[in-house]
C-alpha cells in the first residue's frame, strides 16, 4: 500500500496529459470547500434534542461557532506542520491522508450528533477535519505549480476556485439531504454527515489517485523559462522552506494574506444582517440570502480571474490592485448606505469578494515566484497560518466593534461604518507590506549541489535503480 501511494510511483511519463491534474485538484478542493457552507448546520444543530425547536440541553450557537473556528485553526496548523512532509511524500499519499481525515471527521461528527457530545464534533470536524482541510488545500496547489510553470496563477486559481465552488455545491446539497433525512425524531444532521463523509471520501480518493508529478527537468513543450532580471521577483533558484521563514518577504506576504483575509471576513461575517439593516424595509431576509449567495459566486470567480490575470501583470501588481482598490471599495459601502443605493452597495461588496478570493488564489504563485517551486507546498503551508489567525481575529474584531458601537447608542444601520473604515485601514497597511516585498537575498538560495544532494538522498530513501526520462 505504501508503494502504491509513493511519490516515485506517480512520476509521469513523457506523454502524460497535464490537463488531467486540474480536475484531480478540483475533486479535492470542491470537497473541502464544504467548510464554507458549514453554517447550513448551525440551526439544525441547536435542535438536536428538541427537533422542532431548541430544548433545554440543546447546543447554543456560541458552542457551535467553535466547530468552524477549530477547523480553520487546524487547517493552518496542519498545513504548516505537514507541508514539508507533503513535498517528500508526494501528492497521492498526502491526498489520501487528507481524504481520510476529512471523511473520518464527518463520521466522528455524526457520532457526536447521535450521542449529543459536542466534544466529538470538535474532535471530528474541528481537529481531524481541519487537518484534512489543511493537507487537502496545499496538496493540489503544490502539484499544479510544478505542472504549470508557464501559468502558475491560472493553475492554482483553478484549484482554489474549487474551494470557493465547494460551498456552492455543499450548501444546497446539505439542505437537500437534511430535508430528506429529517423526521419526527431526528433533525437529520447525523445522517447528512455520514452521507457527505462517504461522498467526499470517494471524491477525494479519486482525485488523489489521479495525481502525477512531473519528472525532474520536465517543462511544458515549447516553453522556456523567462530570463531572470536583476530587479525582477521571479527566480529560477530555490529557497529551502527552513530558510524561507527566515526571510523578510515571507513575513510581508504573511501580513498581506492576513490583512486581506481579515478584511474579507469583515464583509462575509456580516453580509446578511448588514444589507438588511443598512437598507431597512427595502432588503428582506430572502434577498439578503441571495446577496450572500452572490458574494460566494464572486468569491469563486475572483479566485480564477485574478490569479489568471496575475500571470500577465505579475503578482505584486495584482496585490497592489487588490490593496489599493480595496480601501476605496470598503469606504464606498457606508457611503452607499448613506445615499440609499443598494446597487452601489452590492457592486462594491461583490468586487471586494473577488479580491478576497483572488488573494487566496494568487498567493501560491507569488510564493513560487519568490522562493522557487521546489518547496512551495511547504512554504505555502506555513503561510496559511495567516488564514488561521485571520479566521480567529477577523470575526472577533468585527463582532466586538459592532457590539461596542451598539452599546454606545449607534443605530444598528450605522454600526458597520467603523468596521468598514477599519478594514480599509488594514488594506492600506497590506498595500505598504506588498510594496516592501523584494527578492530574497542571495545567501538564502540553495546551491545546485545542495539540491542534487537532497534529490539523491530522497532517491536513496525510496526505490533504487529507477530510471527516469520524462522530459518532453
Amino acid at each position, binding site marked *: 500500500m505504501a508503494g502504491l501511494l509513493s511519490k516515485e510511483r506517480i512520476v509521469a511519463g513523457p506523454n502524460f496529459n497535464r490537463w488531467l491534474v486540474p*480536475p484531480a485538484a478540483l475533486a479535492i478542493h470542491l470537497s473541502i470547500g464544504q467548510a464554507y457552507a458549514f453554517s447550513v448546520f448551525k440551526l439544525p444543530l441547536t435542535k438536536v434534542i428538541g427537533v422542532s425547536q431548541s430544548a433545554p440541553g440543546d447546543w447554543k450557537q456560541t458552542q457551535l461557532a467553535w466547530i468552524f473556528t477549530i477547523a480553520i485553526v487546524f487547517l493552518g496548523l496542519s498545513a504548516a506542520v505537514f507541508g514539508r512532509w507533503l513535498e517528500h511524500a508526494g501528492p497521492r499519499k498526502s491526498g489520501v491522508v487528507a481524504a481520510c481525515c476529512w471523511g473520518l471527521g464527518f463520521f466522528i461528527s455524526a457520532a457526536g450528533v447521535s450521542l449529543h457530545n459536542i466534544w466529538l464534533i470538535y474532535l471530528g470536524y474541528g481537529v481531524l477535519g481541519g487537518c484534512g482541510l489543511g493537507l487537502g488545500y496545499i496538496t493540489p496547489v503544490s502539484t499544479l505549480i510544478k505542472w504549470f510553470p508557464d501559468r502558475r496563477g491560472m493553475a492554482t486559481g483553478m484549484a482554489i476556485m474549487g474551494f470557493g465552488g465547494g460551498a*456552492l455545491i455543499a*450548501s*444546497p446539497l446539505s439542505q437537500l439531504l437534511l430535508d430528506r433525512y429529517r423526521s419526527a425524531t431526528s433533525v437529520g444532521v447525523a445522517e447528512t454527515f455520514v452521507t457527505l463523509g462517504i461522498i467526499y471520501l470517494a471524491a477525494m480518493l479519486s482525485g488523489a489517485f489521479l495525481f502525477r508529478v512531473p519528472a525532474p527537468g520536465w517543462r511544458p513543450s515549447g516553453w522556456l523559462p523567462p530570463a531572470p532580471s536583476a530587479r525582477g521577483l521571479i527566480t529560477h533558484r530555490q529557497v529551502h522552506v527552513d530558510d524561507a521563514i527566515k526571510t523578510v518577504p515571507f513575513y510581508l506576504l504573511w501580513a498581506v494574506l492576513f490583512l486581506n483575509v481579515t478584511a474579507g471576513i469583515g464583509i462575509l461575517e456580516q453580509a446578511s444582517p448588514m444589507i438588511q439593516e443598512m437598507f431597512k424595509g427595502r432588503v428582506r431576509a430572502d*434577498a439578503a440570502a*441571495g446577496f450572500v449567495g452572490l458574494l460566494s459566486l464572486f468569491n469563486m470567480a475572483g479566485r480564477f480571474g485574478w490569479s489568471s490575470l496575475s500571470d500577465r501583470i505579475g503578482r505584486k501588481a495584482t496585490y497592489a490592485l487588490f490593496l489599493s482598490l480595496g480601501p476605496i471599495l470598503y469606504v464606498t459601502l457606508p457611503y452607499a448606505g448613506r445615499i440609499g443605493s443598494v446597487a452601489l452597495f452590492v457592486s462594491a461588496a461583490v468586487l471586494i469578494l473577488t479580491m478576497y478570493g483572488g488573494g487566496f488564489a494568487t498567493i501560491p504563485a507569488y510564493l513560487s515566484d519568490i522562493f522557487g517551486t521546489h518547496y512551495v507546498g511547504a512554504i505555502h503551508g506555513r503561510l496559511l497560518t495567516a488564514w488561521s489567525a485571520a479566521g480567529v481575529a477577523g470575526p472577533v474584531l468585527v463582532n466586538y466593534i459592532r457590539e461596542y458601537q451598539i452599546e454606545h447608542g449607534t443605530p444598528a444601520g450605522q454600526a458597520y461604518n467603523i468596521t468598514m473604515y477599519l478594514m480599509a485601514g488594514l488594506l492600506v497597511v497590506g498595500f505598504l507590506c506588498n510594496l516592501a516585498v523584494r527578492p530574497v537575498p542571495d545567501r538564502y538560495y540553495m546551491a545546485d549541489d545542495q539540491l542534487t544532494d537532497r534529490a539523491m538522498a530522497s532517491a536513496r530513501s525510496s526505490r533504487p535503480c529507477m530510471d527516469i526520462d520524462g522530459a518532453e
Partner: protein
Amino acid sequence: MSPLNGSESGTEPPGLAVVLVAWLLVSVPLLWGVWQTIKKASALFR
C-alpha cells in the same frame, strides 16, 4: 526514452477521453452549485 520501472507512468498515458470525463465529473456538480446559487441570488433583484 526508457520506461519508469514499476511506476504507473510506464503504462499508457491517459487518453483525451479520460481527461474529458475527469473534467465532466468535476464540472457537472460545480455548475449545479452555481445554478442553485444564481437561483437563490435572483431574490436580490426581484
